[in-house]
């Protein structure tokens, strides 16, 4: 997982959830961030799909609930 990917994902999530980036770190996930609820999570996934031109499947949406998982995904794209 690259530092660049973590930085990009933190910026994207902060924008989607409308929270300051300082609230997020590489260790953040939906469990540690109250605003990252089910609606927030779908917004994040829509944004990731749009920004990186990828098509997520339902299983992936269920698993991509942490910064680590999302940054790992965009490293692969």
């Amino acid at each position: 997982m690259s530092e660049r990917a973590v930085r990009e994902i933190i910026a994207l999530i902060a924008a989607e959830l409308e929270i300051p980036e300082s609230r997020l770190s590489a260790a953040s996930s939906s469990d540690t961030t109250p605003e990252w609820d089910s609606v927030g999570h779908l917004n994040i996934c829509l944004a990731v799909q749009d920004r990186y031109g990828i098509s997520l499947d339902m299983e992936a949406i269920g698993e991509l609930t942490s910064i680590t998982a999302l940054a790992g995904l965009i490293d692969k794209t």
Partner: protein
Amino acid sequence: MKTLLLSNINMQPLVALLKPAEVVCGAYNSILMDLVDPESPAASDEFDRVFCLFDTDSLLGDVAFGEEGPDQCETLIAALGQFCNRHPGKIVLAHTFCASTSRWLSFADLAHPQSLRSREAALNERLIALARETANLLLIDLEAIVRRHGEAALMSSTFWYAGRIRYTKQMFRILATTIQQALEAYANRSRKVLVLDLDNTLWGGIVGELGPLDVALSEEGGGRCFRDFQRALKALTKTGVLLAICSKNNAADVDEVFDRNEMMILSREDFASLRVDWQPKPENIVDIANALDLGLDSFVFIDDNPVERALVASTLPEVAVPEFPRRVEDLPQWFSREIVPRYFGKYFIGEEDRNKTAQYRANEVRHTLSANLDLGAFLAELGIECTLHVDSADLVTRAAQMTQKTNQFNLTTRRYQVPDLKRFVDSTDHAVILLDYKDRFGSEGAVGLAILDLPAGRIDTFLMSCRVIGRGVEERIIGKAIELFRQRGIAKMVGEFIPTRKNGLVASFYEGQGFSLVSQAEDGRKLYERIIS
């Protein structure tokens, strides 16, 4: 001003995209209850706008799969009508029914009595009829959006099953833009005047060079895109938008196009105002605004030339100046899909709109020009770089071509071939000055040429591309000519003007460059001198 968004699916991702409007989502799947219940949030004074953005497949329920039976679409139409009547002060925005293309009847769908297609058409007919008689029901065409961008790009089954989100991010963005534009149109806040350039905008090519009948404007071939653009402009005038022309051209050339070119869709009468001259465009646009008595904030300016666009955008910031499409073949669609909804969206079109142009033409009043334009500052920011080449053997082909093709800004219109230019370049009695122009918008290449007869102190040829008029380029060439003449010990420089049908633009050019008139022949030829010792 607050908006309640009602839906039977998850439309949450749209909320952030509608900012700065304050939008709140209603309870999930309570669209019908919210419209009918007098105690619902939709009915409360808190919201003055209600958006009903629904999923047609969900409303159709089992009907979509061939079962007869009541669906919720009829109920929704009735509920919308009732709600709008009960709350005339609220604006209700809804869209047409648009079922997905999943058809349980496959190829039989069109002919079958329970066809989804005919069901959808019947529902839309009723919904549209309701909107026509309900002033506060604003309807947008969802079917048109899906048709344009494609179901595959706009719908997502993954997000549908993961969280009842029907659309992709792209669709949410398109919906947000469409809703904002529709509300602007509904509030009658669209712009009123479209100012157009002529060459390479209303027709292809430069009329001053090609002639009135040979500009690209036709029913066959590539010139068709300009004709179609004119058709779209003509249609726009019927919606109450005024057209105006602002073009750097000889008025006589443009008159000829209007009088003689049968491919023109637009006639003079379609324009509320015409400015065809060599004045800076911002001055002409201010002049048009004064004449029509309309504010610059109701103006849009379309021109293919990026420098003209930047000049207008920087000196008249209220005027909307959209980018021009990269390919001319995109011109008609770019105009009707992007420019019209963005600047000239209409929701109501009345009888008076059809005749607006005539009305404004009759009333054109002259006001004093009170604009405070700073063209000097714009030119300074343009970052103009001129490079002068003297007797460059590499450029003879280009130089010969310029003498062949340049008609308007051409003092003597002497046509030369490549061997002539080679001779001038090699001879010590002649000098060939070529000027390359570039600015922050890019390079125009060679735009100016002078051929000097050195022993005689005579400027044999002086020509320039009209694209760079008014940017101080002429002075650079004259300056170089003076330098070269002085080196030969010449104290008096001679300039000529030989009139043609097309070079009226430069009839007084030498007067403006410090020359004095020595003689004028009967055929209009003029001879000038300027002391340079």
